[in-house]
């Protein structure tokens, strides 16, 4: 089922995130993709997340499409100006990749090319405007296009640390939907109760919210996230659970699966993020009963 149709079906959508390889050896990437075929509704391909140079997201999307998967491509505003972003939107369309979303992109200072010149010409909001305008046949300069592209547009809800920030995020999300976003990707969930409270407010947005489920890999990672990611509060009970497990990785898989199960009645879907551990995705899906 195409991603746009899945969104309309009101069924819980399962999306896996897959990083492209750093290099041209795509064997592991393809192997991980094959394991997902028929098990997820879409695969989200980040665009050089954390400013680490790797195979372009659109190229990765085409590879995944060849494997029979439904790709959602991210476009980072950090690396391309409005000409390049629009050109690649057209490129995605002719390559059969129609589900797209923009992200601002983490700062160059977080990545592996510290001396690079970032772009930030468009914001994710103006990217949505550009894509929506192109679907009507006009580019950002008001020039007519030969053939109108048709996109399924998404937008990200950035993290929030308090109620004031949450109100801001909801306003941004509402604006994104008004600009044409037909799905929203929410930050990783570690507290289902708090997320449930958020969803009470987010339900009114009118489009499916796909919640992030980040696979924890260690106690250290959990502590790091608690300290460095806004709005993340992984409970001491969860951390204790990982620490005392005989097989810590298996326990982390179990925690992710429990989160996915818990999200089912709350929102439109889950985005499973394994951050390099894509080979664990089938285990997570098995444990989630998906």
């Amino acid at each position, binding site marked *: 089922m195409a991603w746009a149709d899945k969104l309309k079906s009101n069924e819980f959508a399962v999306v896996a995130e897959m990083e492209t390889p750093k290099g041209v050896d795509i064997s592991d990437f393809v192997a991980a993709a094959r394991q997902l075929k028929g098990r997820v509704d879409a695969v989200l391909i980040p665009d050089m997340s954390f400013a680490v140079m790797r195979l372009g997201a659109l190229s990765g999307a085409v590879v995944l499409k060849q494997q029979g998967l439904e790709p959602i491509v991210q476009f980072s505003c950090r690396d391309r100006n409005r000409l390049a972003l629009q050109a690649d939107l057209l490129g995605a369309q002719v390559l059969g990749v129609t589900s797209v979303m923009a992200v601002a992109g983490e700062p160059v200072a977080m990545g592996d090319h*510290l*001396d*690079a*010149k970032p772009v930030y010409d468009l914001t994710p909001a103006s990217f949505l405007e550009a894509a929506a305008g192109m679907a009507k046949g006009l580019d950002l300069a008001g020039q007519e296009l030969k053939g109108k592209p048709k996109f399924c547009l998404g937008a990200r809800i950035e993290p929030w640390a308090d109620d004031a920030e949450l109100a801001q995020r909801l306003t941004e999300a509402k604006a994104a939907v008004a600009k044409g976003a037909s799905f929203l990707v929410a930050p990783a969930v570690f507290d289902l109760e708090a997320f449930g409270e958020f969803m009470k407010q987010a339900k009114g947005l009118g489009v499916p919210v796909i919640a992030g489920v980040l696979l924890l890999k260690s106690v250290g990672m959990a502590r790091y996230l608690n300290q460095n990611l806004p709005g993340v509060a992984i409970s001491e009970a969860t951390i204790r659970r990982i620490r005392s497990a005989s097989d810590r990785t298996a326990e982390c898989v179990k925690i992710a699966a429990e989160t996915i199960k818990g999200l089912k009645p709350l929102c439109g879907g889950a985005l499973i993020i394994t951050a390099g551990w894509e080979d664990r995705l089938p285990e997570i899906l098995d444990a989630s009963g998906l």
Partner: protein
Amino acid sequence: MITAVRKPLEEIMGFAAPYSRVLLLGCNECVTVCYAGGRKEVGILASALSMAFLKEGKKLDIVEQTLERQCDPEYVEEIAQTIDQYDAVFSMACGCGVQTVAGRYKDKPVFPMVNTMFMGASERQGVWAERCAGCGECVLGRTGGICPVARCSKRIFNGPCGGSTKGKCEIDPGVDCAWQLIWDRLKALGRTDLYSEIMPAKDWRSAKDGGPRRIVREDLLS
């Protein structure tokens, strides 16, 4: 110097609409040298604003004052005793000055009266041109004293692009090709060897691209 040009009167009128008494604050530094926001321009703008308001049958009380430097907290302190008399401050300084005033007097609206343009030099009376982009890692020693970052339209290194014709830039025949200027000067200096040295991809961290910058001089800290 930092160059600036005054904003259109209509825009300033829009800022002034809700107020009856404002402080029109000039700056004695860069904006004085480029005739955008010094004592003289404060007087001219005050007259223009008053007349424009009178024409609309309204009155705006404008108090004129010019500080030595608006980008220096020490001088900005001079208006501390009188600031409460005004509804707003209309600053004729560059963006640095406007922000220093706004940062010091947090409950007072501060509006810019000029558009800050660039770091430039005077070419002749009435003409200023961009000369420095503040990239944080000066290459002028290798480029004959002519900056490719500030003066090449594409900010490229290692020679001109294909759009350089007869010493002019393709974006505008009135714009000199920076790399032609660099070549000519290196030739005059007998240092064309520098032109042949390929400069590595620029490290943009020291420029604005690494985020807002600051200088901390430990030896001067009090």
